[in-house]
């Protein structure tokens, strides 16, 4: 049994944010739309409660353990 096609995803690198993932993985998308699209495919990350003000992760909700989708859900 071969593996069926699934929604494309990556594990983020340690310091990844939306912009670095777009730059590395989504260079085919128009830059002005890419971050918004990436966020819309990853609402489980984008909608996450903000980090505390004293956290080094302020402003970046992406965690090293996350799954980040690089495309919309497959129909």
């Amino acid at each position, binding site marked *: 049994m*071969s*593996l069926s096609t*699934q929604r494309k995803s990556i594990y983020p690198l*340690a310091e990844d944010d939306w912009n670095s993932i777009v730059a590395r993985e989504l260079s085919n998308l128009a830059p002005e739309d890419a971050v918004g699209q990436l966020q819309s495919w990853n609402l489980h990350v984008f909608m996450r409660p903000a980090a505390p003000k004293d956290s080094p992760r302020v402003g970046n909700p992406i965690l*090293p*353990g996350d799954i980040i989708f690089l495309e919309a*859900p497959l129909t």
Partner: protein
Amino acid sequence: MLDLIIKNGTVIDGSGMPGYRADLGIKDGRIVKIGRVAEEALEIVDATGKIVSPGFIDPHTHFDAQLLWDGCAKPVIEHGVTTIVPGNCSLSLAPLKAEHRMKLVGMFNQIEEMPYKAFEEGVEWNWETFDEFITRIKKGLMINVAPLVGHSVLRLWVMGNASMQRVATDAELVELQKLLSECLDAGAIGLSTSFVDMDETLQPVPSRYADMRELQALSEVLGEYGRILQIVPEFYDADLTIARIDQLADLSLSYGITTTFSPLFVNGDNLEGVNRTMTRVEEQAARGARVWPQVQTRPIDISFSFEVSSLLFFRLRTWYSILRFSNHEEVMAAFKDPDTRKALIAEATPMNPVWGSLILRQVKSEENQKYLGLSLSEIAEARGDGLVETMMDLSIEEELQAHFLSANLGHNNDTKVAELLNHPNVHIGASDGGAHILSFSTYGDTGYLLGHFVRDKRLLTLEQAIKKVTSDTAKIWGIADRGLLQTGYIADITVFDPKTVDRGDEYFVNDVPGDGFRYVRDANGVECVLIHGEIAFSANSGYTDSAKGQILSGQAS
């Protein structure tokens, strides 16, 4: 002279083979004879008309704290369970430095709803290492314990507060590997991690700050020891769950480890997602990966009073923040304050179908006894008020001791759940035993399996159901000499009546240290439970003073 004989029962040996009439002879904790046993014994158990099966194994529990004050993990043994796996979801109580104790208590309180006072009054903090913790819980242990070590706890030990901020450095990875090895040497059956849980400040637990290279480093150690990895995936989303299955499969194939994820729920709106998830599990199994989804038997229901926060209000921000971070007086004041009340009503009203079906199950006052057993819809109509208003007013009248039950919230499609329970790639588990003690009873899932799915609905055979919660579990977790009734195997045995076996009604009981309460269920139809050849519980005389429980570290297969 044998120690004990179980006579005249129907033996269902855990292999999935049909049952047969036989006696079991037991000596020095092991099964020494199966058939017609004519020898004498110090003790006889008459199992006429009863099923004799291996003791059940519960692979997803959080009895870590309870084991410090209760070596029986009551009431699981009376449900036929002889082995439990605590330490799931990245949380164990060791290894734990003294300065991190309150942090871990906060996480246990948030994630597993274990009250702070239970830790304050039930726990003597006299360990730090995993080895010391094992030594601590071994005293008076009645039930077998196959403990996982939690990934969040390993990170806390090695990285301190940085564990909740960043990935590990190369040097810290080496320390994490070394620490995991020490825990496995001390008896841990494997490692647990979580990709969803949040701490007491609603921030991600430490395990979620680990990157793939950390998981690979820890899996390398697990592979050397042949031990298991348990994870909590983003179970609310099929695409995320499938991505986690792929991640687990890669780890399984790269390091030769068994992996399991829990939970996998069936809800009305995710049948297609469950089907896709299981297709992926099958595809990865065909590649040779070992990825076992855990499926619980019982439907989801939640009981609550407003004395403590409840999972049911997790998505209602105003409600949850009040219930989670306020004391009794502050919650009462919030419910009485007109402005706060207005905000709470507005936020909760979209969930009126849920509130309307709540059942009032317990009150203190005489005047509200007449509402017991009625739905909140019926009570609201009788009082001429709205649903949310009635819920708050009853709670004010009862000093927050009005208890409501929200039944059948999900995972209640019997046909689909049974299809999963029967599936050869599914592992029955995810009971969460010992956790969420103020929201629902996590005991009796095996009774529900045998009573509801096997006897009443006939959706599984008795042999298949028993195999799933005994030998299958033992094989997946690498628990040797248990899970089957065979000569030479350890005599962990459950004797039950197939006509009456079931979980009992849920009730609220005041038996938690710190004058605390919890929801529990008694068992129906379980006649006798043996652990390591000694009677630990019998329906006639209750718990004995046997203390034959062992730490089972395993070699996952």
